[in-house]
Each structure stands twice: as C-alpha cells, then as structure tokens.
C-alpha cells in the first residue's frame, strides 16, 4: 500500500538525487583527442564546456619526431573523436590508431585548405606538402569550421551550441587577422625577410608577404665549421637580411658573433609547431600568432 510516507520518501530521494543526475548528465563531456597542442587549443575554443580535449604532442613538443606512448593509445581508445592536422604531419598516427583499437572517427581539420609545397627535409630537391597550414589565419578559420562540424557530427544535440561558440571565435580570428596585417604593414617592405631555422612559416609568408629564409650552412649544428659560419654571414650580408631567429643554435655566443659581424639583429623565440607552456607567451593559438608577430616587428622595425 503506498502510504504518505512512501511518497515523502521517494519525493525526498528524487530531490536528493536530481542534482547528482543533473551533474552526471553535464559531466558526460565529449572526449576528444587532438594530435598537436595547436589543434587542441582550437578544439577547446570551439567545444567549450561540452568537450574535454587532450593533445598528444604537448606544448613545446615536436610533432615531426613524436613517438607515442602506451598512455596515448589508452587515451585514443577512450576518445569519442580524434582531430588531426593531416597533410602528412602525423606519420605516426595510423599505427597508433591501429594499435589502440580506437573506434573513434578521425577528422583531418585541414580539409579544404589550399596546400603549398615545401622543399623536402633532406634537401634532395624533392618537394613535399607543407603541413603547417595553421600559420595563415584564414586557414585556421577553415580548421575551426571543420572542427565545429566534426563535433556536431559526434554530438548532434550540441550542434547549435557549437555553432554559436564557433561563430564568436571566428570573429576573434578575424580580428587577429587584421592585427597581423596591420603589424606587417608597419614593417618597411624591404625589411620583410628573416632567417629562421623553423621551416613552418611557409603559409604565413605566402599569406602576409614575408620571406622566410633558411640559414645556409649548418651553423645550427653542434659543431659547425668555419665555412658554415662564414657562409651564413655572407648570406646575411649579401641578401641584406635584417634579422636572424635561430634558437636552436646551441651556443648563444655563436649567435651574437654572427649577428655582430653581419649586422643582423637577433630575434627572440618563435613558436611555429607547438604552443608554449600554459604560463608561457604562446599558450593559445591567438597568443602564439600575436607573440610571433610581436617578435617580427620588434626585430624588423627600424
């Protein structure tokens, strides 16, 4: 017989358990994996509170030589969706996916961009597709739309939310693009060239009119020869390059020497392939672009 007490008890129970139920529902975030920290940041900015994203290649990591760990395989297996760059960046991804037995769909966020080619790493004269498409903000916007669609595909109930957040973020990216163009415009046209060992700025250069030159000679190696040093000094002088960004020269004094003799300015640290640590100057994609353009202007403007 259902008594008043039973009603009260079950009512009470429902009252108590409903916050928990509500919490449970909202703690069921969509688990996403991003291959690199930059994409991870973009996913975070599109997915908001609904998505829990982890990047496999973390801040300051190198996606080209990344070697995945068993922990990565576990994360993959638990993920609902995987976002990769594509364009040949993550050579290790196919094997990892196979090994982890992950069933999540893989979304290549670079779908739809116009790829450029770059000289192959071994300098054999062959060219390969340049995977660093995010360096152009326009491409980043395409990434964002792909991510939005990918998330909506996996989580249809959040489709509207994703669309709203993405639109707001795209607007921020527009503002970023205007900033970048304005900054470049402040640099005298004949000074829009730098030497850097990063080979990741191809899309940036094409989009915004800057020239990125690889250093000649192997002065970045641990044991350069006198010829290497002479070559790069001659290169800087001959091509009148105003600034040199070469953080992986192990000896800062070597850098100073090259700068002094060639007349070039030494630039600061650039972030091209990965974000910095959370307390660093390039913790998000937008921060990263702002930081880089800040370094360029600092080194190149008069």
């Amino acid at each position: 017989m259902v008594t008043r007490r039973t009603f009260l008890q079950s009512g009470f129970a429902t009252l108590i358990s409903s916050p928990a139920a509500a919490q449970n529902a909202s703690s069921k975030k969509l688990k996403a994996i991003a291959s690199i920290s930059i994409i991870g940041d973009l996913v975070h900015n599109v997915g908001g509170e609904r998505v829990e994203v982890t990047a496999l290649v973390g801040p300051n990591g190198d996606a080209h030589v990344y070697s995945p760990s068993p922990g990565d395989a576990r994360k993959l297996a638990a993920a609902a969706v995987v976002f990769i760059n594509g364009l040949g960046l993550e050579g290790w991804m196919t094997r990892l996916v196979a090994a982890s037995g992950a069933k999540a769909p893989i979304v290549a966020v670079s779908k739809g961009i116009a790829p450029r080619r770059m000289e192959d790493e071994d300098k054999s004269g062959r060219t390969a597709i340049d995977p660093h498409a995010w360096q152009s903000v326009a491409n980043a916007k395409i990434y964002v739309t792909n991510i939005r669609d990918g998330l909506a595909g996996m989580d249809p109930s959040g489709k509207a939310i994703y669309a709203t957040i993405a639109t707001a973020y795209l607007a921020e990216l527009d503002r970023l693009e205007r900033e970048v163009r304005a900054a470049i415009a402040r640099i005298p046209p004949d000074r829009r060239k730098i030497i850097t060992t990063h080979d990741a700025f191809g899309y940036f250069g094409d989009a915004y009119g800057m020239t990125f030159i690889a250093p000649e000679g192997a002065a970045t190696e641990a044991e350069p020869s006198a010829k290497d040093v002479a070559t790069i000094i001659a290169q800087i002088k001959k091509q009148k390059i105003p600034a040199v960004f070469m953080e992986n020269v192990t000896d800062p004094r070597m850098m100073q020497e090259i700068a002094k003799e060639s007349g070039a300015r030494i630039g600061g640290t650039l972030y091209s392939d990965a974000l910095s640590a959370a307390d660093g100057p390039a913790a998000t994609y937008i921060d990263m672009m702002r930081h880089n353009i800040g370094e360029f202007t600092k080194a190149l403007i008069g």
Partner: protein
Amino acid sequence: MLYAVLFAPFIEFEFMRRALVGIFALALGAPPVGVFLMLRRMSLIGDAMAHAILPGAAIGFLVAGLSLFAMAGGGLAAGFLIAVGAGLIARATPLKEDASLAAFFLISLALGVTLVSVKGNNVDLLHFLFGSVLAIDDLALMLIAGIATVSLIVLALIWRPLVLECVDAGFLRSVSRSGGPAHIAFLALVVMNLVGGFQALGTLLAVGIMMLPAITARFWARDITTMIGVAVGCATISGYVGLLISFHADLPSGPAIILAAGTLYALSVVFGPVGGLIWLAMPRRHLEA
C-alpha cells in the same frame, strides 16, 4: 692564389680573426703547462678535470640558474679544490699524484651528477658551459689572453722550484720550503688554463692544445726550455692550419685544429730528431768519440 688560401679568410671575416687571436693566446699559455704535466706523468688530467668541475658548475646553476658567470666560477672553484686537494694529499700520504687525483675526480663527478639530478633538470650543464672557438666574444677573448699572461708570469716565477720538484724533489726539500707552494701554484695554473679554456674554447681544444703540442715536443728537444718553445710553436701552427682547414674544407673547427696538431705529432713520432722511429730503422754511422 696562395693569398686567397692562406690569408683571405682572416682578412675577410672578423670571426676568423677573433678565433685566430683566441687560439694564439691559448697556444702561448697552455703548452708550457702541458710540458710540465707530461713530464710529471699527469697527461690525462685534462680529461679528468673536464668531468671533475661538474659539481661546481651544478652548484653555480642551483644558486644562479643558467648564468655563465656563476657556473664558470663554480667550475673554477671546484677545479681548484680538486687539484690542490689531490696535490696536498699526494704530498702528505703514500698516495701518488695520479691516484689521488683519480679519487678526487671520481667523487666529484658522482657528486655533480647527483646535484644535477636533484634539481630534476636534465639540462646538459657542461655543454652549456663549454664554448667554441668560432664563438669567442670579447669576454672570452680577454679571459684567455689574461690566463695566458698570468700563466707565463707565474711560470717564470716558479720556474726553479718547479723544475727541481720534477727532477729531484728530495734535493729541493733539503734546500728549500718552496716546493709545496710552487707545486700548488702550478696546479692552480693547470686548473686556470683548463677551466678558462673550456669556457672560452671548449674541452677538446683546451685539453688538446695543452697536451698534444707538449707531447710532440718530446721528439724535438733535449732540454726543457727548447721543449716549451717547440710546444708553443706546434700549438700556434696547428691553430692557424686547423682554422684554415675548417674554413676551406668545411670541417668542424675544434676537431680540425686538434687533427692538425695530431698530424704534427704523428710526423714527429716518425721523424723527430729525439727518438723518432725512423732512426731505429735507419741508424746513422756512430761518431768518432
């Protein structure tokens, strides 16, 4: 044509000139010290010292972060402590110099590795501390030039007790108490040349230019003054030739210089007037008296 090969690189590029001056300064101060090290059978001290200064550099790093000044200062202090400590123990106990030094440097190295790992950082401290001949800034240049000057002056001052200590320490003890201080001063010179050399030019060059020309000179001289002169000469030539090879043949500079010195050594082993192998193969007719 000869001009282009021999002189143009130095005329055209400032970094080549600085490298040359740096190497010449090292070639002046280090080989004399190296000659004495060789004669005292301490030729391997350079390598030991390169590792032994680690705890000093580690402490400098822990105190002041990646500051070249703190780490080099720490390294120098560690080097002095080890060299002088080993020297004093060798004098006061039955231990000989090499054993005493080995004990010190092994303990020191282990201490250094422990200190570095305690901080949880695997920054390659020593790599950061060591310089390169192609990257000599003004500070490094002044450092080596200063060390060369001090070395020559101190050597001149302690010449007599140092020589006598090497050849007949018992006699020196019987006529003078200067043996101990001279010995310590000499060890200080060794540490200064090595650590300063590491910092300015890297380990390979610092140790190589100190020892290899001295060892080569053994085949050219019968008295110590000539030996030192030959050693300085070899070091200077090796520096010049090595830099040119690095420039024209696109080879790493430190190793090129040491290989040039090594070639001189190999030639001397065979053709040197004092004990060269070729005289064993082709003995000349003996003299009248």
